[in-house]
């Protein structure tokens, strides 16, 4: 899921003292396999995921429903902390060959996750028997789950960057029509909308995370607008730098301009950006759709829509949660079938999942009346067609080196500590360094 600053900071990677760091890691003695809670005649199914907050509650509810329907399966779910530590654990489990039967992975990280060595492929015939086939998914994201002709990831959803708007303020600023935000088209029009909102409140019209530990939003902001210019960060195969200086500079200058003119809050960490929008004096908030639960809880009048097209073509930064089968030395049999069964069941029932803001990847659910009744969740379902996933590179995807490093660089553009041109130079230098570094986890299949 998404980093909630508080929860991320809570868990420390145990003070890695100089010695632990110096010594890297000695051989870890194998953990004893936990005693299974599976009763007689039950199939044991372990599922690792990274859903905290509102997502965690939703997932818990879905898993409980699955348990009720499948008394023959003993499902043990583990919620692990979102972010880099999750992938460290998952990788190590797969390397040991004693991983859980099923896990969640961000689709854009698949390339760097050694498919074929740390991950096992899905059995497509088995999935088809359970009602899950290729044609049930948007072609682009289904294919992203394939490596060397095998299906290593099955997408659950896409979680795009969206525009939240405070309906009452937008009404006052004359930005609404028929209970919805008027269509905004082009960079200047968006800036005008922010100006109109500022006139009403005297405060910046937009708030988003601009700084903080491992802040990623500045990267999401850049990636969204840059994808709208039609530019690519990396080549199709993720092996070369493809950043278009002119287009990137246009986007960075626009971002810097919004902050300079006081149209957006210059300094806000993640928690503060959510808090400020919750305060009800800011018309717009740019963030992933996962914060819907927070704003619902406080009850401010708000709605959500896809990020307006400011630079020519629709596009928004996103990643997808996907299911993967971590490598087990003896994968197969009843436990593997149970894993496939859980995947299919969760996909078929992903209306419940959509309540947390995510757009289901399983197309039959997108047509489900129950989903279409979800407001504002179904308002931005079109984002699934414009998902701009990172190019497949080992250092890309959620909580990856690329996001964290470029997030830090573009954070400077918003806070005013870096010039757009300087940020572009720095971003390119960092991308080159990452490209020059060989993939530390080469997959058998890649």
């Amino acid at each position, binding site marked *: 899921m998404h980093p909630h600053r508080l929860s991320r900071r809570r868990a*420390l990677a145990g003070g890695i003292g100089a010695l632990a760091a110096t010594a890297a890691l*000695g051989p870890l003695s194998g953990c004893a396999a936990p005693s299974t809670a599976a009763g007689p005649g039950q199939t044991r199914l372990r599922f690792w995921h990274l859903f905290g907050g509102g997502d965690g509650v939703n997932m818990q509810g879905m898993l409980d429903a699955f348990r009720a329907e499948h008394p023959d399966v003993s499902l043990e779910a583990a919620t692990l902390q979102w972010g880099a530590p999750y992938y460290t654990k998952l990788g190590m489990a797969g390397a040991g060959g004693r991983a859980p039967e099923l896990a969640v992975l961000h689709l854009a990280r698949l390339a760097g996750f050694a498919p074929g060595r740390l991950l096992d492929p899905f059995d497509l015939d088995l999935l088809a028997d359970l009602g899950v086939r290729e044609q049930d998914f948007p072609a682009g994201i289904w294919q992203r789950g394939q490596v060397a002709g095998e299906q290593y990831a099955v997408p659950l959803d896409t979680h795009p960057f969206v525009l939240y708007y405070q309906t009452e303020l937008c009404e006052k600023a004359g930005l609404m029509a028929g209970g919805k935000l008027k269509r905004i088209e082009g960079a200047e029009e968006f800036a005008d909308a922010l100006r109109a909102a500022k006139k009403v409140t005297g405060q910046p019209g937009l708030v988003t995370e601009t700084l903080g530990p491992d802040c990623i939003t500045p990267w999401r902001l850049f990636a969204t607008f840059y994808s709208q210019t039609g530019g690519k960060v990396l080549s199709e195969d993720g092996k070369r730098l493809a950043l278009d200086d002119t287009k990137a500079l246009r986007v960075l200058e626009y971002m810097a301009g919004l902050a300079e003119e006081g149209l957006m809050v210059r*300094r806000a960490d993640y928690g503060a950006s959510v808090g400020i929008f919750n305060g009800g004096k800011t018309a717009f908030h740019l963030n992933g759709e996962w914060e819907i639960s927070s704003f619902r809880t406080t009850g401010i009048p708000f709605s959500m829509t896809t990020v307006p097209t400011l630079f020519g073509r629709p596009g928004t930064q996103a990643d997808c949660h996907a299911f993967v089968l971590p490598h087990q030395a003896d994968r197969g049999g009843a436990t593997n079938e149970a894993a496939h069964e859980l995947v299919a069941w969760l996909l078929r029932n992903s209306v419940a999942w959509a309540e947390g803001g995510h757009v289901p990847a399983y197309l039959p659910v997108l047509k489900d009346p129950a989903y279409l009744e979800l407001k504002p969740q179904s308002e931005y379902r079109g984002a699934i067609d414009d998902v701009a996933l990172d190019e497949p590179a080992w250092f890309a995807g959620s909580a990856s080196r690329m996001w964290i490093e470029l997030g*830090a660089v573009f*954070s400077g553009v918003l806070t005013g500590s870096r010039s757009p041109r300087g940020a572009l130079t720095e971003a390119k230098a960092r991308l080159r360094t990452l490209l020059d570094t060989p993939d530390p986890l080469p997959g058998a299949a890649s």
Partner: protein
Amino acid sequence: MTTTTAAPPSPVNKRATAPGRPVRSVHRKWTEHGLVFVAPFLVVYAMFLIWPLLSGLGMSMTSENITGTGGEFVGLDNYAEAVADPDVWSSLWNTVWFTVLSTVPLVLVGLGLALLSHQLRVVQWLWRLSWFAPFLLPSGVVCLLFAQMIFPSGFGLADQMLAAVGLEPGIGWLSEERYAMLSIVATTVWWTVGFNFLLYLAALQAIPVHLYEAAELDGAGAWNRLWHITLPMLRRTTGLVVVLQVLASLKIFDQVYIMTGGGPDESTRPILQYVYQQGFTGYRIGYASAVSYIFFALILIVSLVQPMLSRRRAEEAAK
């Protein structure tokens, strides 16, 4: 060479003090070496320190990844890359800068508090407790306390205090480069000064009272007593405190990891965090090991050079 101890000399003692008797260790039972008693410690020490040290050194010469699969021997390539890596140097500099910034106040404040507490004869337990108490808190607690109650921009305690005296609040204590490192230093001082305070207090209590009495008879005032007796008598402790503090400060990780994540713009990222990033989010255990060995060399130099310096000073003072 007679012992003046009232206690009957132990066999070991006798051997050590008996003149002209060669020590024939061959005939000793091995328990006499105490080996059997330190064996458990040695085993743990070897397993959790010596072996990881060596295996880390080995790993630093491979392209090993986090999962321990598929590293190849690359010789000194990782070291060459690390020396040419600007991030290594910038994070090393941040570490050194933090050490400089934090060691000075941690030593001076610790000394000041100890002198105060030593002078204040009333409710001494209270001073001791209140200055040492923060040191007992885990780093996570302290850092969250400061990051979420004291330093938040606009509504934190630090900003409220500024506002109370009529200054402009809204300072990015942790989010502006000018202040972030200083905020981390301030947090660290509050949290760990109690340890140095305790060392100084113990040393103060060990200064013989008759020195002060003699000085008073000679008409030395409080200032002179401090300057000519107390501080010189604390010299050794200061040496110890400085070394321990420098080593502790060089190992900075927790505070930065929790409070700023190394930001803003990596201006507070210490070398250990860079090791962590390369190893645990970049999966390059081989490279991370090489960087940590470079850091290890630095720590080793510091811990070896310092005693040599203080020994030389002590010898000069003895002349």
